[in-house]
């Protein structure tokens, strides 16, 4: 019987697989678990060198970070900037993505290449002139400034992703709708959009997370209205260790929560955006 001949080799393969999976899981999850522990650990336990794993936990550092160090403002700023970025890139990017996916027009390849090229370009270096431009516009050191910059950085990628997602919704539906008398716009909003919505929503959240995590441009463009990563860069490193970890935890959680909700689209999006 076959099942009696193969087992040993199969079992070894299974064992090796499990061991490798174990390593992978530990490698990727450990830093997260550890910083969560440290974020909630009480300082006295942290400074006791013999205690590897703290036993006392507290929410005190969250309080002092939020109120004392005004991380509260920074978090709010980050939310506003990321939200605006998400909105702007969606509104501007959607028609552009639709144009790329549904129409054939001269210059199409050039535009696609342009989007790709901006992806390979170190967009962060634009923070310097952007600051000057924003100062002239009167939006430097505001939420608008950071959002405009982030939207510029995110737009090319979003356009390509939208184009890809919309291409995945067959044209036949729209054409069928138009035969029934709907105008093209009508067909888009009634048929294509709802079908593409999961992917589009996931991409919008992706834009949010990109903005939330962005450090370099945000730090240069904001001074009194800092976003969270800029705030951490500037202040947290001067504060005691345990506050650093709380801050790191706060930065990580929302991103991970969001990504968890869109995980089914994640590989598609990153696969698209980085190919």
């Amino acid at each position, binding site marked *: 019987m076959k099942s009696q001949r193969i087992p040993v080799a199969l079992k070894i393969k299974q064992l090796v697989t499990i061991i490798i*999976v174990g390593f*992978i899981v530990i*490698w*990727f*999850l450990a*830093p997260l678990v*550890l*910083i969560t522990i*440290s974020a909630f650990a009480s300082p006295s336990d942290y*400074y006791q060198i013999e205690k*590897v794993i703290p036993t006392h936990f507290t929410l005190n550092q969250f309080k002092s970070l939020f109120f004392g160090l005004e991380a509260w403002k920074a978090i709010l700023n980050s939310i506003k900037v990321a939200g605006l970025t998400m909105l702007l890139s969606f509104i*501007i990017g959607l*028609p*552009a993505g*639709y144009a*790329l996916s*549904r*129409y054939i*027009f001269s210059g*199409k*390849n050039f*535009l*696609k*290449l342009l989007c*790709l090229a*901006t992806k*390979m*370009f*170190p967009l*962060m*270096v*634009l*923070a*310097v*002139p*952007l*600051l*000057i431009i924003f100062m002239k516009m009167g939006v430097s050191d505001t939420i608008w400034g950071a959002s405009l*910059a982030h939207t*510029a950085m995110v*737009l090319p990628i979003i356009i*390509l992703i939208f184009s890809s997602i919309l291409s995945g919704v067959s044209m036949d539906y729209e054409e069928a709708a138009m035969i029934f008398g709907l105008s093209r716009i009508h067909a888009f909003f009634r048929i294509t959009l709802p079908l593409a919505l999961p992917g589009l929503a996931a991409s919008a959240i992706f834009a949010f997370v990109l903005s939330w*995590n962005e*450090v370099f441009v945000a*730090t240069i463009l904001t001074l009194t209205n800092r976003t969270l990563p800029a705030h*951490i*860069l500037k202040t947290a*490193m001067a504060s005691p260790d345990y506050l650093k*970890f709380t*801050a*790191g935890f706060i930065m990580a959680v929302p*991103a*991970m929560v969001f*990504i968890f909700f869109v995980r089914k689209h*994640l*590989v598609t999006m*990153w*696969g698209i955006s*980085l*190919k």
Partner: protein
Amino acid sequence: MISFSQREKKWIPYLLFLPALIYLAGFIGYPLVKTLQLAFISEKGKVGIENFITLSQDSTFWKALKNTLYLLIAIVPLQVILAFLLALFVDGRFKGYMTVLYIICIPLALSDVSAALMSYNIFTSHGFLNKFLMKFGFIDVPIYFFGLGLSSRAFWVIVLTELWRATPLVFVILLASLQVISKDYFEAADVFGFSSWQKFFHITLPLTMPSLQSALLIRTLFSFQIFGVVWLLSGRDIPILAGEVYYQQAELSNFRLAATYGFIIALICIIISWAYITLLKTKHLEV
């Protein structure tokens, strides 16, 4: 009734794309021009390469360039190999591989600030590594990884952090390319009695080569933008190009030199991309 006139049909896509084009021209195109302005006009207003000369005389510039290159050499090859191994492993579609996939992708959601803090949490003097080693008697006093004079140690922590954080990016690209390899090839190979090694070298490797090159290129370009991890873990002890842009801009308010640094970063990226596209003539970069 579907009755668009020919004229109407023609300008619709351009109209749809116009907002995006205007936006990008205004917020990427114009700043690019301004960067050139800032970099190539000296303090006194003369057009020339004076800013570049100033930089070339500053030893920090050369240190930053050197360090950025060191990081690149240390991180990129290792990362691509690691990501490839992970991708090959996950492509094996063992039971539960989707969960492992999601776990591997978790660092994609994190910013480099969070990743840096996680590393700090582990490697600092009161961090988990030291506590663990001391608890079990391996060492008596904590090993210091960060701080003045310890930049060589901090360097490796930075490399490790970047490996942890950015390998998933490369992993996703490579996995995608592995998954499109048609199973027919492997079945044909089986018919001819190929061993696993032969299958790898004659089927898998050649077919993933474009993706590997793509991943190498992207990762190389990205490594010139490394900022958060280095800045948080070692400040200016390990100067890097992006860090110097920040330093000149935010702390010295020297827009011109900051722009000059920025221009140099951009130029390096463009040269590398151009060299890559020309030398390797890769068609797959076309969308």
